[in-house]
């Protein structure tokens, strides 16, 4: 069930070329308004491409003179709002896609029961959506989406509306269901990408700027957005005498070897950044944010996780000058 998407939507400024291989899960990330929901709409059939084509498993879903209506695509969307039918019980909600596909009532009932059991929802089968908690409702929605046996599952920030504990339990369940299914997940959460997705596509301004295996993209990001998503600092400069030299002349020592003058990305964790007694990278603090038991200090182009004691000792506040150092061994360098 591989997906091929090659489409332009001029009125939204979107131009895409995207593929998901059979059985793979693609995480789609990007800033708000980058075109993530446009991708989902194109695939689900909520939107017609201006030009281009959408193909699923070799079947043309949308093209120049061809259009498959949403209900015939076997593409099911699961969003952060479960959208359970309020007039039906949990069981009947899960039966709905089966009945829609012509499965006889008795068999639909059995299959729905299996899905409900799978998600630990048997005691809630006769409840109406109004009598379910947010997490329970979302699990019913997952059971319903899986019962539809979609060729492609679209997950639109499925955990965004849930609190952390419920979300992590649900993530574990989703992980199990997604192993051999073809899916696209739109997310703002790096955990979703790491645990659920085989590959990652980064959207910005309606274009895909990066695409590749999740681990690889997250450890060697090539765009500011991906780096921030992965929680990394990303700087770009040229290799010179054992350091990456940034445009402003700042030297960032790193391990080579690289050909001199080669343009490089340098990625490192904010937790690797230290305060430098003398020398170091001169920056100005732009913001402070609590980060676990540390404080994330933001500067113009990089972030450092420092202890509250260090913050107090050096009287760091927005506007303060600060000298930073990054141990050579913590910096990953790769071609830009």
């Amino acid at each position, binding site marked *: 069930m591989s997906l091929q998407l090659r489409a332009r939507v001029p009125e939204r400024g979107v131009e895409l070329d995207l593929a998901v291989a059979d059985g793979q899960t693609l995480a789609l990330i990007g800033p708000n308004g980058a075109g993530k929901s446009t991708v989902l709409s194109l695939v*689900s059939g909520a939107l017609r491409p201006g030009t281009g084509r959408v193909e699923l498993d070799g079947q043309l879903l949308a093209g120049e003179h061809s259009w498959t209506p949403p*209900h015939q695509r076997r593409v*099911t969307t699961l969003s952060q709002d479960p959208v359970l039918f309020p007039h039906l019980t949990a069981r009947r909600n899960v039966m709905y896609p089966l009945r829609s596909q012509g499965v006889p009532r008795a068999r639909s009932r059995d299959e729905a029961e299996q899905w409900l059991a799978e998600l630990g929802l048997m005691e809630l089968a006769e409840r109406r959506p109004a009598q379910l908690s947010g997490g329970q409702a979302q699990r019913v929605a997952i059971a319903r989406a899986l019962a539809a046996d979609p060729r492609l599952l679209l997950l639109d920030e499925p955990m965004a509306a849930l609190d952390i504990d419920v979300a992590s339990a649900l993530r574990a369940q989703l992980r199990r269901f997604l192993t051999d299914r073809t899916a696209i997940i739109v997310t703002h959460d790096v955990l979703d990408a790491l645990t659920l997705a085989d590959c990652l596509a980064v959207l910005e301004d309606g274009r895909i700027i990066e695409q590749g295996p999740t681990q690889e993209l997250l450890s060697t990001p090539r765009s500011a957005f991906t780096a921030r998503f992965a929680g990394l600092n990303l700087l770009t400069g040229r290799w010179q005498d054992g350091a990456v030299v940034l445009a402003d002349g700042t030297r960032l020592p790193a391990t080579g070897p690289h050909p001199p003058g080669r343009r490089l990305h340098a990625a490192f964790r904010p937790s690797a950044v230290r305060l430098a007694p003398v020398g170091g990278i001169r920056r100005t603090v732009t913001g402070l944010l609590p980060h676990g038991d540390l404080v994330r200090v933001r500067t113009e182009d990089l972030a450092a996780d420092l202890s509250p004691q260090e913050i107090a000792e050096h009287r760091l506040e927005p506007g303060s000058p600060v000298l930073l150092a990054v141990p050579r061994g913590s910096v990953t360098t790769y071609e830009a």
Partner: protein
Amino acid sequence: MSTLPRWVLLPALLGALFVLLPLTAMASRVRWANVGALLTSEASLSALRLSVQTSATSALACVLVGVPMSVLLARAEFRGLSLLRSLVLLPLVLPPVVGGIALLYTFGRQGLLGRHLEVLGLEIAFSTTAVVLAQTFVALPFLVISLEGALRTAGTRYEVTAASLGAGPSRVLLGVTLPLVLPSLLSGTVLAFARALGEFGATITFAGSLQGTTRTLPLEIYLQRESDPEAAVALSFLLMIVAVVVIAVARRRVSA
């Protein structure tokens, strides 16, 4: 409640009084000793029977065409949609007599369609069918306006979800869209029935006043008012009771 200024109470009470006082005044004129005889007279019974039958038929006709109309108005997108909506709701503001005349020029013997129907041996004007047509004409907007509003409020997300689960358009409409607006559909139907029950102007213009065929309860009341005011009051009271029962039943069904 506590945020309401106290002065709203006075006009609100005046308004309620304005509605209730005339009804009470009328009820006070009912001669209870004669009510039984007056209401069970042949003319009254046949008018009541005709009224209930035609109004129920009209309500059904309103549902059959009004539901698809509401769905189209609420969901379809095409040029002239808002104009169409205004035209469909026209009977709400049109004097019923005008509606009756319009129907006459459509279904009457010389009318636009009536001419051709007469060739086929169908005469509609001044028949019970005409009563139903007149009532449907004036009652339809009541159903459409309440159902269309409910459909717009309900939004399309359940429908989009149902389609993404593989349900075809008919299944979505019958299994999701309509069940979700069922309370509004019921109250709209009751409103249409009540409006049909009270229909006078269009009916007398288009259907006339033949006892047992086209003389519904409001027409009977109007005629009796001249000859037998006491009977008119008793019938009015009866119509009022029917209306109250209808509203009460509808409210119970809707809130349940």
